[in-house]
């Protein structure tokens, strides 16, 4: 089996159908009349935001082979950016604050990336974590930046453009659709990127960096660009998170969220962005399910994670693919 196939880079028909059905179901969800639909709309918005975050990490982890244990730093930084950009009495304009937050986190990722991208393997994992901890403590120890209590975001960003307001993000349903639109857009962009010359170079670096260098690709530049782009996209997710919850604290940059993102990507399946989405939804759903079930949900969650690594090393998409491939083989055997 070729590496591309093993990584499910080219999505089989079954998974494409699954994604399309999922997207349509999401789009239709707010239309279903039900009791506590507001709660579920918020929950699904959160899952979509985490899916964007997981996709941004997958660009590093699954495509380029760089496992960052500090990716939450960029998520949190963009959240803080929104908190600082929003005045206490009026909302901030969406149209400049979102780009500023994403570019700002991208810039932070560029600076940090300059240091971390030179390291390899397990060193990379730990160095990214160390830099994220640094960012964490800058905010945690500094009362001017909110300290350990964090900051409030008093208003959601305002979408008014030259006096015309196309949509209102204070409305939960509108915010849901805005997030869904960004999720689809970023997914499409990343899929396009994956099969562009740039994306092919990143994949090449994952498979064999020495050979890529020998062929003449400056791997440092490619990896740094990927790191910066992933940081900026994580920033988009962090911005949305802060806008939705109206609150940021240093935990958003913490070690746990970074590890969660890694788990989401592995759980879904790496290197194709679809897995990151599936993983984010599955992880969050399982966690909420366990939390509803028992006070000791961490025990179940931990066991779930251990079982997934033991028995589904290629993630949920890998399982689906294996299942559909097996049925197809059976169908071919018995014509």
């Amino acid at each position, binding site marked *: 089996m070729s590496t591309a196939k093993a990584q499910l880079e080219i999505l089989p028909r079954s998974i494409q159908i699954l994604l399309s059905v999922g997207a349509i179901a999401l789009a239709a969800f707010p239309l279903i009349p039900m009791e506590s639909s507001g709660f579920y709309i918020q929950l699904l918005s959160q899952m979509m935001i985490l899916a964007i975050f997981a996709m941004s990490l997958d660009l590093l982890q699954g495509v380029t082979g760089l496992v960052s244990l500090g990716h939450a730093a960029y998520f949190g930084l963009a959240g803080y950016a929104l908190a600082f950009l929003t005045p206490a009495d009026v909302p901030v304009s969406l149209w400049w604050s979102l780009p500023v937050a994403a570019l700002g986190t991208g810039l932070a990722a560029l600076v940090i990336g300059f*240091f971390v991208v030179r*390291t390899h393997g397990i060193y990379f994992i*730990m160095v990214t974590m160390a830099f994220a901890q640094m960012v964490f*403590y800058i905010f945690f120890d500094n009362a001017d930046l909110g300290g350990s209590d964090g900051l409030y975001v008093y208003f959601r960003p305002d979408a008014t453009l030259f006096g015309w307001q196309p949509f209102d993000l204070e409305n939960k349903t509108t915010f849901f659709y805005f997030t869904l639109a960004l999720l689809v857009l970023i997914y499409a962009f990343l899929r396009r990127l994956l099969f562009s010359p740039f994306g092919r170079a990143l994949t090449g670096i994952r498979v064999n960096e020495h050979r890529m260098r020998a062929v003449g690709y400056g791997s440092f530049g490619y990896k740094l660009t990927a790191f910066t782009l992933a940081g900026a996209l994580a920033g988009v997710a962090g911005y949305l998170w802060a806008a939705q919850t109206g609150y940021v604290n240093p935990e958003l940059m913490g070690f746990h969220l970074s590890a969660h993102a*890694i788990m989401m990507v592995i759980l879904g399946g790496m290197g194709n962005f679809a897995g990151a989405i599936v993983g984010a939804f599955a992880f969050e759903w399982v966690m909420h399910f366990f939390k509803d079930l028992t006070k000791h949900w961490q025990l179940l*969650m*931990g*066991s*779930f994670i251990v079982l997934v690594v033991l028995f589904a090393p290629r993630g949920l998409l890998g399982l689906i693919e294996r299942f559909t491939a097996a049925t197809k083989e059976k169908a071919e055997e018995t014509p």
Partner: protein
Amino acid sequence: MDFANFLIQLLNSVQYGLLLFMLAAGLTLIFGIMGVVNLAHGTFYMLGAYLAWFFTSHFDNLLIAIVLGALLAVAFGWALEWLLIRHFYKRDHLDQVLLTFGLIYIFQEARSILWGDDVHSVAVPAMFNGAIQLTENLSYPVYRLVVSAVCAGLALGLYLLISKTRLGMKIRAGAFNREMTESLGINIRFIHAIVFAMGVGLAAVAGMVAAPISSVYPGMGSSVLIMCFVVVVIGGIGSVRGALVAALMVGLVDTFCKVLLPEIAGMAVYMLMAAVLLFKPEGLFKS
């Protein structure tokens, strides 16, 4: 800062550094020899501290608690290696990260079920309960010196074990070239189990001796884990000597920054790590 004050901070940083070394040595050996990234290492420290609290509340004697706790921790480490870790030697580092993160969840919740989520304190043993008078109003607690001595003793023991004994030779050989060592007829599986159990034991003992100083609380594992990673990375992964030097460096920087530059104290250690990696991307003593 006058001399007595300086001396106190110096002793504190050495004590903290040696404690970190106990944890980092296990972590670095487990990675260097078995190739396993163990995020759950901090929870063994927490386990040790809780065992110390649990046993002292029954036997009222920290020494008995430490002996019992160490035996229990080593047995626990052995069982864990046999049950789960050994299936992951040849797996990707990512899978190991995921596995051990899952284990953190499980151990945390198990602790919460067994011993609750309260903060506990462990009394300093009566015989070490004094303080050494440095100046008129500055004194240094004897127990902290005992902790330093215990950790230094264990560090020396570890050094002798690895560099002078037959078992140590096999451990080094296994780290250097696994296939070759195996084909010489050395049971590498057994060596791995010993190293893992030893690592768990060291982390737990660190937690037990630290319990009277730091108190016993649920989140104590995760902060210490991150510090250990910093130590291991600065020292060079797999190098026990590097871990010792790095742990002492981290102890010094952390302790003195807290006193002299409290604004950047939280970050100082990470800045040290970044600075070291800028010049030595593989750590100070990459073996």
